[in-house]
């Protein structure tokens, strides 16, 4: 898919029309002409707008994505992947054959096994087992598609997150959200098409987790900030009221329209447009962030105690509000899951912070009929070792097997895909590499992942590089 040719053709068409009007005059006075040009600049927006909605390769199952990125790497062994055998062998050394060519990050591979700190039980008709730490998620067992056979290449956080976010451990590639926006455009002209919400601490991968890489800047994620202006520099300077802002922008538009008439550069029309959109954003963004209009029952559903406090729960509700407004991709980052120590206590706290809201989001989307075509993804950059780190209450980074879950957007419900071995160490069946996950997500969005490409440095880059197989078994 290449955009630039279409855009150029459209721009050329528009320009010829504008020049026809201006040079041939057709009896228009100067003022009428500039008004007409300004109007045309507005009308022309969808065609020249790189964020205009676009049709993918085939009919999509998911039209939007909400990615709940659990940064730091949650323990699959405490949350999703019950391993009685691991509990049985608690304190023993792992079998030597498992450790061949194995590399964790901190620990010597030959460290004692550590049984799960929490109990599991089956839920729903599907009988999917979840940890007692996830009572709310467990209630949705029949709506979730749990992948217990995830694999990745990286064992350190920054490369691992960048791998999960961009399909490469090397920095500089576009993020999944950027690819999505590049492929599909946005359905909302008032808000950015790819919004990022953050809670807990800053991520290891930093801004590159949601960057545009080598794609045009407009496809990058726009963080909505947890404090101060939700969008940077959204507020007018001190002392400037709305009337002043409107009058200023009216004057600016007149002056820029005058430049457009003189120079004829279509970029001026686009700039006029951007300032008008900025003005609209000044209204729409605070409206979006204001949870005051949400009924108390909804706040309760998500477990939001203080609608102003920036939490994962609040971000989940904001994600739903963004999706409702046609934002294409919302990504939450919750960096809290790196339990090298204090596993028992901290993993519990993290679940208290995230379980209810994650489940509420899925339930809420379902209730509103949005879940069918919204794909929700929950997971981190890798998993944790079945072996202990430190005394008896920590786990190291582990990339050979971990769990994530998906919901909505055309994936199976109440389904478990893949299986790890008895110790949760290796994948025993149906491995899903990060590239496969990406291929599948793009497939759900209506793309052949081998054909959603962008030419850069002479090469047609893909999210999945030269890898990735669509995991058919995940798709409903």
């Amino acid at each position, binding site marked *: 898919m290449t955009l630039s040719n279409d855009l150029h053709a459209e721009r050329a068409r528009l*320009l010829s029309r504008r020049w026809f009007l201006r040079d041939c005059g057709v009896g228009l006075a100067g003022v009428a002409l500039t008004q007409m040009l300004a109007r045309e600049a507005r009308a022309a927006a969808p065609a020249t707008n790189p964020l205009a909605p676009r049709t993918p390769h085939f009919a999509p199952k998911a039209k939007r994505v909400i990615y709940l990125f659990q940064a730091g790497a949650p323990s699959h062994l405490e949350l999703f992947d019950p391993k009685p055998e691991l509990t049985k062998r608690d304190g023993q050394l792992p079998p030597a054959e498992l450790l061949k060519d194995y590399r964790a990050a901190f620990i010597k591979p030959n460290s004692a096994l550590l049984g799960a700190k929490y109990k599991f039980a089956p839920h729903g008709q599907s009988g999917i087992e979840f940890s007692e730490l996830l009572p709310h998620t467990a209630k949705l067992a029949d709506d979730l598609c749990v992948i217990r056979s995830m694999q990745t290449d990286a064992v350190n956080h920054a490369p691992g997150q960048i791998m999960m976010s961009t399909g490469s451990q090397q920095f500089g590639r576009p993020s999944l959200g950027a690819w999505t926006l590049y492929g599909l455009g946005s359905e909302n002209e008032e808000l950015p098409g790819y919004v990022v919400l953050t809670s807990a601490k*800053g991520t290891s991968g*930093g801004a590159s987790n949601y960057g545009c890489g080598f794609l045009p*800047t407009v496809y990058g994620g726009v963080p909505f900030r947890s404090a101060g202006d939700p969008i*940077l520099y959204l507020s007018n300077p001190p002392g400037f009221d709305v009337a002043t802002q409107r009058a200023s922008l009216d004057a600016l538009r007149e*002056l820029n329209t005058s430049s457009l008439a003189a120079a004829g550069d279509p*970029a001026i029309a*686009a*700039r006029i447009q*951007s300032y008008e959109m900025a003005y609209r954003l000044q209204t729409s963004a605070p409206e979006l962030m204001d949870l005051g209009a949400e009924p108390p029952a909804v706040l309760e559903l998500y477990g939001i105690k203080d609608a102003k406090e920036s939490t994962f729960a609040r971000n989940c509700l904001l994600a739903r509000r963004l999706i409702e407004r046609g934002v294409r991709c919302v990504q939450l980052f919750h960096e809290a899951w790196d339990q090298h120590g204090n596993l028992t206590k901290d993993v519990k706290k993290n679940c208290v912070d995230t379980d209810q809201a994650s489940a509420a989001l899925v339930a809420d989307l379902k209730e509103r009929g949005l879940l069918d075509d919204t794909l929700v993804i929950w997971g981190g950059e890798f998993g944790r070792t079945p072996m202990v780190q430190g005394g008896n209450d920590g786990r190291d980074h582990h990339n050979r097997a971990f769990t994530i879950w998906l919901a909505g957007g055309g994936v199976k419900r109440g389904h478990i895909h893949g299986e790890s071995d008895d110790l949760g160490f290796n994948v025993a069946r149906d491995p899903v590499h990060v590239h496969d996950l990406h291929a599948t997500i793009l497939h759900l969005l209506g793309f052949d992942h081998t054909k959603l490409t962008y030419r850069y440095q002479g090469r047609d880059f893909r999210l999945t590089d030269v890898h990735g197989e669509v995991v058919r078994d995940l798709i409903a």
Partner: protein
Amino acid sequence: MLGLFGAEPAVSFNRDIRPILSDNCFACHGADAGSRKAGLRLDDRAAALVGGKSGEPAIVPGQPAKSELLQRVRSPHEDEAMPPPDKKPRLKPAEIAKLERWIANGAAYESHWSFIAPTAATFPAIGNQKSKIENPIDAFVAARLRREKFSPAPAADAATLARRLHLDVTGLPPTPAEVAAFSHDGFSATLDRLLARPAYGEKWARHWLDAARYADSNGYEKDLPREQWAWRDWVIDAFNRDLPYDKFIVEQIAGDLLPDATPEQIIATGFLRNSMINEEGAIVPEQFRKEEMFDRMDCVGKAVLGLTLQCAQCHTHKFDPISHDEYFGLFAFLNNTYEAQSWVHTSDQRKQIADLDRVIAELEARLRNERPNWEKELAAWEEGVRAQLIPWTPFVATELGSDSGLNHPTQEADGSILTLGHPTTRGAIYAITEQLLNGVTGLRFEALTHGDLTFRGPGRSRYGTWAVSELKFSVKVPGGKEWQPLRLQNATADFSEPADKLEEEWKADFDKEGKRTRGPVAFMVDGDKLTGWRADRGPGRRNQPSVAAVQFECPIEYPVGTKFRVDIVTDHGGSSSDRSNSMVGCLRLGFTTEKDPRVPPVDHTAVLALTVPPAQRTEAQRRAIFTAWRQSLSEAKEINGAIAAAWEKYPPGPTSVLHLAERSTADTRPTHLLDRGAWDRPKHAVAPGVPAALHPFPADAPRSRLGFARWLVDPHSPLTARVAVNRVWQAVFGTGLVETAEDFGTRAPIPEYLDVLDALAVDFMAHGWSQKHLLKTILSTATYRQSSVASPAFLERDPNNRLLARGPRFRLEAEVVRDTALGIAGLLSSKVGGPSIFPPVPQSVIDYNYVKPTYWIPAQGADRYRRALYVFRKRSMPDPVMSVFDAPNADTACARRPRSNTPLAALTSLNEPVFVEAAQALALRVLREGGRTDAERADYAYRLCTARPIRDNERATLTALLRDTRQRLAEGWLNPREIATGAPAKLPELPPDTTPQDAAAWTIIARVLLNLDETLTKS
């Protein structure tokens, strides 16, 4: 694109055929044997004529009908059609027609255009227009436009041209006075004047900084700040003194290897160190050193060669003639290096250091004069020391690690144990051996310098210093469960600091009461980690080895299979996640069976030098021995005291630089091809070498980094000069002559103006690679001076101005947007160079970092208004202003920026504090300098922002806004002070006869004008 411009000339391989084959065929039938299908190769004529496994020749010259290639691209059958219908769309009929014509004409292949060195072309004759053409570039453009039946745009008016020229040479807008001067002095004189300004170097350094991925932080998770601005200043200075581009490149890649390398030439090699550095806990350092190497290759590819080298990291390049082996051949030139860090002293300090050296040399000369037999005395002393030295058996580790797992030490060929990667504040690294140690009486501990450590170490603090809080020894007998500690005693060292409290600098949260002390070597075996051994000899002398010996209570006796473990405990650092740790970066352990093992109180540097036979000693080694001897002389107290006092005056460097240094000959690093480009899958060794498709490596040149650097800028290089020319062209015209500035490979089509590119490249080299000459040549063309107003027909036929029938018009780059606002406002600081400044950044951005940048204290006063070039670049927290205007975040090299136009950018230039302060200052400037009436002021403000006088309709718009605003102010809807200063009660610094209402009204106007498309655009 070509079809747009007129009748097609005869089919050309490079222009017409290669792009078709490259896009559709080479991925499976190209240079990479690994991914080649059916044994067919189409990038090589001989191979294509033979064909693949099918035995049918793919191409039969002159006979399209017999050429399998054509049959396949036309075939309607799915199993036969090429490219495979499930992978690629069918070729277009026009493309097939081209292939057919090409085969019919003999199927001639050509080398890719960019692999043939540029030659000076004959300038085209331009018929009756000849008299007007002053510049050969214009001749090419005029000839082309004639052919396309275009006519060039008229010259831009003086005001537009003055502004364009100022922006292009200095990155700053002209003042009204400078616009007037331009009209008076003319283009050429103005150009010369601007090229001489320091602002020229600042503007053009920025373009190189993009390609060089310059940043002020290390990237990855920790993203700690780094000091690299000395390199950035070197680049600015290189532009300003017009350092020839060939030298510019050589010094940046191998300045340290030049004969008598100057400190500046060493700073220059910071270029390749701009890679990100991963300091995440538990990383394997070599993995991320390799990542840095891959990044360096990518950078040299994008910035110098215009080649996508990194495409050959994992396998042979799919499109360009760079094999997997050749990639590692280039890699090998850069691989034999240390990741060095050195102090950068000011020129005054360098003089001071030279004085110090002179004083010491004089004192030492005096000593020699006073002791005519000094050589004999020294030899006798040497004998005496040698007699005290005892043999030590190296410790051979069977296991190395760290108690936290945060570090992964390695044992090097010389037995030393090196700990790179994450710097740990508190913890221990350990080494375990199963050597048979029976009879061992003592242990030696050496702290050694190493090229990969901060200032060569031996420590890993920000000064390369260290402390050993405890040195522990323990034993595990066969079958034993626990490590049994053994007591260590009678510690001796070559040098220790006196006992004292740990300095404020190393204060830590875990020691709020300041209980920790440092000092004599006994502190490291006293069983108390609050005390530690330190041997910091002070600035100028601290980065040298030290040694200690410790004794067991009695000789060791353990059964075979016993494991022995040494723990080196670090607990004398400051806060975590910065550079205040006290780890020893490089250490070596040894055993002895001698009775009462001790080390003499002689600097270990000298002892190590003594082990070298006298004839082979370096000057530094001879000096070290002489110094140690001198210090041993009790009669030389006065001279030694004077020398020690001189060292006390050694000036601390105000900053440092990361740079490359060549590894020592005893420690060379071979290069291996990496299977699939994976850092831990080395295959066969690869010698330094260059791709066969490029110009040859001179037979007599050394196969070293320096040889490579010189090869890069060899005048025979088909790429280097073109890439440099293209970078300048791109900055001036908005798009390069080669649009893909980072890729001149086979996927890059022949540029519309290859003749212009080549003429400029040849001229550039002929003029000593002068970058000022190059810019001047480009700017002096009539092509450049054209009006950017587009004629309707051109705009439709050539929306992107590839034919250059009009002048450039595009939004300013990020830095220039900010600098322009500050310049117009009269706020811009003209200070050149120095540490990067911290702009105000919203707290929500600061708070959202993995490691919070506690050092981020927004600049006040003049520093707040430094050029954007000096804004601190933190990789994981891209500057919100710069990034919204498309500045890259320096994760990787960037040869070409995108140009976006978003509402977020509009909000930024409307509301970001520095832009608002610029609006407030501009208002006062207009009131101060712009005349008495609003009409005069409006005109002045327009001249400041756009360089041109205001038009009537524009004046009417501004007057109306002013009138309404004044009315709202008068009615009390707005607080004038708050608008004019940002604070409700603060008065602006009003010019005479003006009111706060004037300042407020004009602030509102100024904010509009700073956001004009014309203000933000070069036209």
